[in-house]
């Protein structure tokens, strides 16, 4: 365990940004936290979490995959990738840190997504422990301890100091770079903070919420539940839940005609959209009920069934906060619980 006094934070940021980029949550024009490329003078947001999750850095909303340059009747294929820049993601919360594990299961499984892999390799994740969880938080339901986050390195902010410890080789390397700034620390204040946070966590409104009844073995029971109709009836079919979600990983691949050629890019897609997975014959899920069900079945049933019981949710609570009609995974899981249990 190392620490540095809070007065030294700008120096820490500068050191982290050395030789690459540092991204950290900074308040934007709307007053919300947003991962922003650090520049001299920027301060860490005091908000609990960012509106957009940290997944953008490994799986950006749009990404050019390949370009075709056309001249007259000739076509040239161009790989737009350049040698990526190393970067540090600082201030990632425990929930988002776990989301990378989930995304890895998708993108790093065979066949490996080389675009994702390259970004993953270039990034070092420095997490920050939560001290003031909010009512929408339920990461503990997935075995995440927000007071003791994962990541390449983990941090704790106390009133006077930042405590930091490395958890992986990448983390060790980062700490080695920061060595001049850090001093050895007694972990007692960190342990005290963990205990304090644990007490708050126990009192959260969703502290008892669990998804344990879901998984591959209740597939048909969950799928056939009559509750989907009423749960989905108010759904607007927008992509808010999907796009603020740290674990949603679906994308579409499209061509953009630039006038000089084609850029083939991928962009986030949402299973809530009516043209999701649309094929030549049309869309396999023709109603909003089916699309809505797909999203929650994927997170609660299909994903754990295929990934050793790991749910496709980390309990960050973004969808609870942002859904325009306040329908979310918690309401869905609670409503279905009876049907999958019986």
């Amino acid at each position: 365990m190392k620490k540095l006094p809070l007065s030294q934070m700008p120096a820490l940021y500068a050191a982290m940004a050395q030789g690459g980029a540092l991204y950290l949550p900074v308040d934007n024009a709307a007053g919300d936290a947003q991962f922003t490329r650090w520049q001299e003078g920027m301060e860490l947001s005091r908000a609990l979490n960012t509106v957009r999750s940290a997944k953008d850095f490994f799986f950006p909303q749009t990404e050019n995959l390949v370009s075709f340059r056309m001249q007259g009747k000739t076509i040239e294929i161009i790989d737009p990738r350049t040698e990526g820049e190393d970067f540090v993601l600082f201030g990632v919360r425990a929930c988002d840190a776990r989301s990378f594990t989930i995304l890895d299961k998708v993108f790093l499984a065979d066949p490996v997504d080389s675009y994702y892999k390259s970004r993953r390799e270039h990034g070092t994740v420095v997490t920050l422990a939560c001290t003031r969880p909010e009512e929408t938080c339920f990461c503990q339901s997935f075995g995440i301890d927000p007071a003791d986050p994962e990541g390449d390195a983990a941090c704790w902010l106390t009133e006077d100091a930042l405590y930091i410890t490395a958890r992986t080789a990448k983390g060790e390397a980062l700490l080695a770079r920061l060595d001049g700034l850090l001093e050895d620390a007694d972990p007692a204040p960190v342990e005290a903070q963990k205990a304090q946070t644990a007490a708050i966590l126990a009192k959260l409104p969703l502290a008892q919420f669990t998804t344990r009844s879901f998984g591959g073995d209740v597939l048909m029971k969950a799928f056939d539940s009559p509750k989907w109709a009423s749960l989905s009836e108010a759904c607007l079919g927008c992509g808010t839940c999907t796009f603020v979600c740290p674990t949603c990983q679906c994308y579409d691949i499209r061509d953009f005609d630039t006038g000089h050629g084609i850029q083939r890019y991928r962009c986030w897609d949402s299973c809530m959209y009516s043209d999701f997975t649309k094929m030549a014959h049309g869309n396999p899920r023709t109603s909003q009920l089916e699309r809505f069900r797909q999203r929650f079945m994927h997170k609660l049933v299909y994903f754990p069934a295929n990934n050793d019981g790991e749910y496709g949710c980390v309990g960050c609570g973004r969808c609870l906060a942002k859904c325009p009609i306040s329908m979310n995974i918690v309401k869905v899981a609670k409503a279905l619980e009876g049907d999958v249990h019986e």
Partner: protein
Amino acid sequence: MQRIGVFVCWCGSNIAATVDVEAVAEALSHEPGVVFSANYQYMCSEAGQNLIKDAIRDHQLTGVVICSCSPRMHEQTFRKTAAAAGLNPYMVEIANIREQCSWIHKDKAAGTEKAIILGRAAVAKVHLNAPLVAGESPVTKRALVIGGGIAGIQTALDIADAGFEVDIVEKEPTIGGKMTQLDKTFPTLDCAACILTPKMVDCAQDERIHIYAYSEVEKVEGFVGNFTVTIKKKARFVDETKCTGCGLCTEKCPQKKVPNLFNLGLDTRRAIYIPFAQAVPKVATIDADYCNMLKNGKCGVCAKVCTAGAIDYKQTDQHIEEKYGAIVVATGYNPIKLDSFEEYAYAQSPDVVTSLEFERLTNAAGPTGGTLLRPSDGKHPHTIVFVQCVGSRDTSGCGKPYCSKICCMYTAKHAMLTRDKYPDTEVYVFYIDVRTPGKNFDEFYRRAVEEYGVHYIKGMVGKVAPQADGTLMVQASDLISNEQLHISADMVVLAAAIEPDKSARPLATMLTASMDTNDFFTEAHPKLRPVESPTAGIFLSGACQGPKDIPETVAQAGAAASKVIGLLSKNKLTGNPCVARSDEMLCNGCSSCEKVCPYGAISYEDKEFRMPNRTVAIRRVAKVNPAVCQGCGACTVACPSGAMDLLGFSNRQIMAEVDAICK
């Protein structure tokens, strides 16, 4: 993928002098889809056209781009060329490299570069062209004329004269309209009845003309060449086929106190009546509002005296459905109501009359037998004040903003005739301007002033005050001498503004013909198509389109007839294939497109759609009638979902041109 041929024209040196035509042909040969590219001295010459035809056949071209003069010059030529070689004519696009390139640029490099870009845009467009075929529809060879005044009569006579059947729908019991109420006509002073009634008789006697008098149009469906119209024949309670028009019933009817509308209420008639002696059809009509038999079943005198047995108290409205190829609107005008002009005391004094009432008071068939007498006491008036522009050119909101056009001339006529017949009568005319733009009009006006001594005073009448002695005190200002005038008059005659007949507005809705803010029908083009409505197959005749005098009305009536004849003489109509088309899968049925369509080409239907899971949904969707659509494209932008597109100028085609130009 299209197989496109590019043909670059030199136009002698017109293009070749400032555009390197070979370079253009060479550059365009590398565009995707271009399989043939050539340049030639005169593409529009026979040899040039043969070059195109040969290339279409030899290279199996599916699209053709001609880089040449303006499409306004030779688009039709090249479309015919393509068609002659078996290619759909709408697979041809023109890049205008003469008027819009070679002629305006001196620098050959710049001109060449621009010509290539314009050519590329045309190539990009042709890639998205699809063969278009103009639709055809049959023509019902029968016309409908709505309104039986002089406009409608003249139109009907002219159409019938060309050999087509034509129906006149007139809401009054007789045709003839306003002109039957007039005494003399300016500037020749011939009697209105003498020149009109022979035409009315012609209508009645022409076998090709059918008159639906006392009838109204109730419903119009269909489109140019194919209208279906429902006509309501109002109950006259007299069998038209039996009535001989002897008029005995109109003398024996005990109900004598019915205001005589033909004389504008200046006298009375019976409950059963024939509006005037020369009425066509000359058939009696029972006024149900006054007939004792119809109101309370007590009377039956007319039935008793009618030897022809024509009276039928049980008659009801009849609905007749007819098909027409063309419709002429001739709904005419009315003087405005003068209730809101209190300053002229129209409502207070019977001696303040409108000009049309004055016509009746001077007409030999009018209530006074043609002797000019004051309505209040039947005495001869010695001083008459005419007030011009009552409600015309009035932006105060009480009247109409426009000039009613006919008042200057008929007031001069009234003034002159009064002075002629009653030289002891002083006549004053108050005016804003005197407008006499017509053949012999100014001469006529000057005669009124110079020969007949009519006092023309430029100025406004401020107030007409009825006096205890029965005279009318007219307060007015003389703007030229800048004096206030007080004239003690026996009569005041108001030149009321004229407005379209009230029946015109609902009729316009039925016809989807547009109107201006004053409820005059709008013409398809104010200069070049003055007798056509923007809605195909609807034509305009007379004052329904704007204020007009009789010669103008008759001229327009003839013009409308000639347009109708032109239409009816075709066996089928070939449309412009570049029309709007609605993608019903995308249509919301919101009616935005319908609202901006100037032609009424868009209608809606509730259509069943097969939805997922064997369900059916009924959705309201727009339908474009290609025979009516003129292809302006207003609907395509009004449509938020992009359901409406324009063939030949589709969204994708225009965007492809934009892309090609901007890249």
